[in-house]
């Protein structure tokens, strides 16, 4: 018996562009505390594969050397291999061209995958069968966490936040074709969506989108277990001279605790905790334009200009 009606389970990985691969790798492994699992070269560009300590699968962040920064693609984990066919049929019926890739074709540890473009121009991948290499704990009598972690060491990747010129078209694509559910939205005074928050994992968001240039990455976020972990992480970031965009604070939307900062290439990272449970029939929460400051940063009630304008 299937134990879930969600065909998409969660965010599987993000591949991001970095102009200085070694500098970025040093940051992601030594400051953020991810683990390097593989290296390869694809289309002439060297890549580094990384994962968080509690993740069982081969990679959750891939760094690719490129002249610019930004998002190469996002990938979501599918529950079953048959879901690849389900979404291929659904996307093609809607006129969206889909490319299919065999397991390991796209890189080491890579699952079988399909790829297509969202209306915003973002390259989206759905994948099944990413190689499992285990977390850092045994399967018998495991301690609750490893003792030899370096850096901030978040247990896992959590969600992704991108920008789109037409938030409503992006949202319709993700809800109607990819079966995401809307949990929260920020509405302009004329009623159109400025930002939406979408989930498959019974959390407030697996992906969110805000008005901005097509194809842009706003940030990707790692999970922390609690607020105290966010505070300690901010200490570590400041110590290492990382540019902190938003010091530890609270969101209105998602209710999460957060801190934002930039990797050495200018890709924005977030550490996130909190939130709430959502049932599949959760009635979405609506924020109005005049409350947007409180929606995004609940304590300060205003959003710094950099948060809206800087992206990668």
């Amino acid at each position, binding site marked *: *018996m*299937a*134990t*879930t*009606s*969600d065909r998409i*389970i*969660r965010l599987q990985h993000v591949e991001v562009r970095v102009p200085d691969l070694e500098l970025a790798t040093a940051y992601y492994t030594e400051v953020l505390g991810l683990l390097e699992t593989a290296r390869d070269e694809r289309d002439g560009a060297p890549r580094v594969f990384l994962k968080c300590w*509690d993740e*069982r699968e081969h990679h959750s962040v891939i760094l690719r050397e490129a002249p610019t920064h930004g998002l190469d693609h996002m990938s979501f*984990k599918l*529950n079953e291999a048959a879901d690849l066919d389900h979404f291929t049929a659904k996307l093609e019926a809607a006129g969206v061209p889909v490319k299919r890739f065999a397991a390991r074709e796209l890189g080491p540890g890579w699952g079988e995958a399909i790829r297509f473009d969202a209306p915003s121009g973002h390259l989206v991948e759905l994948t099944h069968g990413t190689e499992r290499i285990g977390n850092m704990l045994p*399967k*018998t*009598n*495991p*301690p*609750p*966490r490893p003792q030899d972690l370096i850096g901030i060491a978040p*247990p*896992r990747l959590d969600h992704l936040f991108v920008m789109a010129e037409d938030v409503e078209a992006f949202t319709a694509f993700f809800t109607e074709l990819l079966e995401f559910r809307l949990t929260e939205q920020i509405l302009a005074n004329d009623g159109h969506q400025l930002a939406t928050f979408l989930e498959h*994992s*019974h*959390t407030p968001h697996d992906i969110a989108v805000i008005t901005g240039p097509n194809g842009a990455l706003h940030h990707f976020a790692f*999970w922390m*277990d*609690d*607020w*105290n972990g966010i505070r300690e992480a901010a200490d570590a970031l400041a110590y290492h001279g990382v540019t902190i965009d938003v010091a530890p604070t*609270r*969101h*209105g939307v*998602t*209710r999460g605790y957060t801190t934002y900062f930039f990797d050495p290439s200018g890709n924005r990272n977030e550490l996130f*905790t*909190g939130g*709430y*449970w959502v*049932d*599949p029939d*959760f*009635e*979405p*929460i*609506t*924020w*109005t334009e005049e*409350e947007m400051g*409180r*929606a995004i940063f*609940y304590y300060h009630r205003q959003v710094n200009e950099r948060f809206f304008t800087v992206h990668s």
Partner: protein
Amino acid sequence: MGILRLAHVDVRTPDLDLSAAYYTEVMGLQQVARTDDCVYLKCWDEEDHHSLRMRYNPRTGMDSFTFRVEEEDDLHEFEKKVEAYGCPTTRVSRGGAVGQGESIRFEVPSGQIMELVWDIEKTGNILGKHNPSPVPPPDLPGIAPPRMDHMLVNAEEVAESASFFIDVLGMRMTEQVLDGNGHQLGVWLAGNTRSPHDIAIVNGPNGALHHWAYWLDDWDHIRKAADTLAFNGVQIDQGPTRHGVTRGNTIYFFDPLGIRNEVFTGGYWVDPDTEILTWTEDNFGKGLFYYENVISQRFLRMHT
């Protein structure tokens, strides 16, 4: 199709006023309805009508526990599967229970009455859907957890009970404790919540309730809850401490009539294909209470 999450627990109390006072003032739940012999309670972030029903009865105990299914049509499918397994089911029609529509009820192999429901009256949380603040008003009394999280029942034959929840109800095992002969002493099972457990089953008398747990957002809230419990003279059973199983942070304590409650946070993310973790009998102490590494007889032997 599948089991979504724990929806509510229905228990009996010989002193309805005392129980209601404890759950509203110390635990900090909201009383949503009261009849001659029942009190209905919920946590501030729950959108369902209630998550706890307390019914007057001279003897403390559990009437039933209820899980929400993923989709409306699932009730019919589960009815067929449970009947095919050999457990007779009863349909409760709309109007048969406060705060919910149609449901099915049956006795699980370990003797507890389980209910499945999809149609739950949604009364909303206390924040609403329009520019809601991320936190409830600061003057909520008591511990005020946002929601109920999971429960633990006892079974004489843990493996038989586990196979019912896994093979018939489609729940996933996340962790298990095995004795020296490879028999299951305890199993932890998830619905579709991506958390380490929505229900757990540990060796003990059939029909018994071990505890149900409320979620708190972090360890600091667990610590504050311990202060609140101690101030109010509540008997603490274990903690604040850490579980090996589930990795959670926890306190166990007893309500005024001796029903065990837990406040819980932490855990980890579970995919449908996450491998099962196994604890061996020689590590059972650490599995239960990671810091103390002792098997508390009160913890294993006392139940409702």
